[in-house]
């Protein structure tokens, strides 16, 4: 077995480089409240986390993702060890004698505000504030261990100045936009995106045809799964694609991404007709011609790529009626390849499904809905989260066998 492993290593299995936070990276910051925000870590700037304080971007550069950091004095940060599980027992959660009474807190509102201000300046730590609060709370001593734990957790999420920098992976980006601006990415949830990628059968060398009216999350996720021998060809409306999500991806993806406007789908491109410039041409003329030539060549390349056909997958998330969108791109798809269509609602896909069933160009046509549930796992307090998303979207998938019938 060791021989095999050695062989594998010899065959070129090499660890990817470690990922660290670089200047200019976008980072998803999870705050003590569990809310997240995306920030760009520009050198020599200050990153503000609102009421949780702010820190120097430089202090984070060079660190790896996933650690917990605490903001200390002067915008500095230090690694913070999150406390492990406590052993509070829900069986004793019987606050029979406790009456919720704001008067049990002996610190005044002003005193607490003062502590908060000191904390933001880094003069007082979160744990010091919480100790003050519990010491001055008359009811606290009467609480059960379970209620004490709950109280402290609640205060921690309010006063802690700890944060976790998360990588802008496809998962994290999907999760982020789903929670803060669902419409931007057309309501696609992590489990649905995951199933989509699996159904699409994208891999390093795959050539994928994609319509993504969800601002590029889908295109970005596909790009993480292809290398330079593959590509993603995005077909978009308007003159330029609106793939805003791509700018949060920290790796350059241009080489593997080609884009084409719908209006150019049937375009018969003439040869580049601008005459050669004379020697007397201005620098602007020279640069302009070169730019137009590059544009012309890029479009020619993209059209050639499209029209070479036999794409390995067709992936659609569109605000247009989906049946025709699929139909117009089918000629470029290879045989025995997947078509996967996403929508936030089922009804637009029902129409496509009915057409696919009757067209005889597809087999294994399936309409499915993902279901995802997160749990709180804590000793004696394990349960699904009390509030969750109502839906993560629908997927229609089919295998194209059109040419055979």
């Amino acid at each position, binding site marked *: 077995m060791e021989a095999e492993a050695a062989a594998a290593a010899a065959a070129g299995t090499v660890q990817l480089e470690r990922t660290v936070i670089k200047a200019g990276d976008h980072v998803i910051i999870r705050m003590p409240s569990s809310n997240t925000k995306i920030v760009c870590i520009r050198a020599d700037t200050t990153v503000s986390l609102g009421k949780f304080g702010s820190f120097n971007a430089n202090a984070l550069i060079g660190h*790896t993702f996933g650690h917990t950091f605490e903001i200390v004095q002067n915008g500095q940060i230090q690694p913070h060890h999150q406390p492990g599980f406590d052993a509070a027992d829900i069986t004793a959660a019987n606050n029979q004698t406790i009456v919720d009474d704001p008067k049990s807190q002996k610190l005044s509102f002003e005193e607490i505000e003062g502590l908060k201000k000191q904390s933001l300046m880094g003069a007082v730590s979160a744990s010091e504030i919480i100790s003050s609060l519990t010491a001055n709370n008359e009811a606290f001593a009467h609480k059960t261990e379970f209620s004490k734990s709950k109280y402290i957790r609640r205060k921690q999420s309010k006063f802690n100045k700890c944060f976790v920098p998360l990588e802008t992976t496809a998962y994290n980006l999907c999760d982020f936009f789903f929670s803060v601006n669902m419409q931007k990415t057309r309501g696609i949830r992590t489990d649905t995106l995951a199933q989509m990628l699996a159904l699409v059968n994208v891999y390093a060398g795959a050539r994928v045809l994609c319509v993504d009216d969800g601002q590029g999350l889908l295109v970005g996720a596909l790009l993480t799964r292809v290398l330079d021998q593959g590509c993603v060809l995005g077909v978009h409306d308007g003159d330029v694609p609106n793939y805003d999500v791509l700018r949060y991806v920290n790796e350059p993806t241009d080489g593997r991404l080609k884009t084409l406007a719908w209006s150019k789908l049937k375009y018969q491109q003439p040869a580049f007709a601008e005459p050669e410039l004379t020697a007397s041409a201005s620098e602007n003329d020279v640069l302009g011609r070169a730019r137009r030539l590059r544009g012309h060549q890029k479009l020619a390349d993209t059209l050639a790529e499209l029209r070479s056909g036999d794409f390995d997958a067709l992936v659609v998330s569109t605000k247009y009626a989906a049946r025709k969108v699929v139909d117009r791109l089918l000629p470029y798809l290879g045989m025995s390849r997947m078509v996967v269509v996403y929508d936030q609602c089922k009804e637009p896909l029902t129409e496509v499904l009915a057409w696919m069933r009757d067209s005889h160009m597809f087999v294994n046509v399936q309409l499915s809905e993902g279901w995802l549930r997160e749990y709180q796992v804590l000793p004696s307090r394990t349960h699904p989260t009390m509030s969750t998303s109502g839906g993560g979207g629908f997927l229609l998938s089919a295998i194209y066998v059109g040419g055979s019938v």
Partner: protein
Amino acid sequence: MMFHEYKNVIEDGDTVIVYLNHNSMSPLKVEAGQVYNNRFGTFKHDDMIGLKYGSKVVNKDGKGFVFLLHPTPALWTQVVPHRTQILYLPDISFISLYLDLRPGKIMIESGTGSGSFSHSIARTIAPTGHLYTFEYHEIRAQTARKEFIEHNLTDVVTIEHRDVIANGFGKRNIADAVFLDLPAPWDAVAAAKDALRKDTIGRICCFSPCIEQVQRTALALDEHGFSEIRMYESLAKDYEIRNIPQPDIDEVIDGQRVSFKPVKSDKKKRKLENDSACSGTDTDANGSTVKELTVTKPTDVVRGHTSYLTFAILAPEEGDDIDMSE
């Protein structure tokens, strides 16, 4: 033919997925001179060789037909011989995305089981990544090894027959991700920590059907310094489409019809107008015309649970010194 990339034409020795219908698919190794029988008739392998993947082949009588599909990890999950409880697409895909699997990643899996997940991992991390998969049951390990060889996956997958709870993975600081599908995953958490890279973020997923396993696993992960412990269930349900009649009650009130008895809907061929999935007409058993509606309905029985997925990360060990320049 490889499971982790497409080709266009079926050659002698290739594996194809024979598609009869949605509920009936099976893998077939195409070998010159052989004959394949199913309930739709007899098919000659020689007729298959040279065809494009996705082609329809007709049987000797010219009556029955099947499609020859290109194998993919997703189809393999539907046809793999079950040697153990296998992983299904919703879990496979969610775990893969959560663990950030991409070309180049190095992953450890234990146990291999029926190899359903292994195929999907291999497709995703190939050609530059590697999967080390461990199976403690000797016969299952042998069978999986044979499949990986047949499916040309040996460049990306190394399988080992090994009891990882007793002996660890025999790997240190190598893996970007670890997947544990074991009865007692908590006993393998220390080994997983050993195997994960320490210079960058490492991710782990433990797959357990029972909640008691999750409870113990989460404690073990916490004790071993993993963080961001989060647990999910991922499922999916399929919908069926059909047209149902929507007779008009006024016809009964007015006495034009006594009652409505639908023609058995599974016997009649569904007809849909091209431009609309939401209207149509049908004829009831009395011969009168009835408006129709296209509806979707979940399949009557769906998978209600597979496993709980417990995830955690192993964040690189940083000292108290915040300077990482070394």
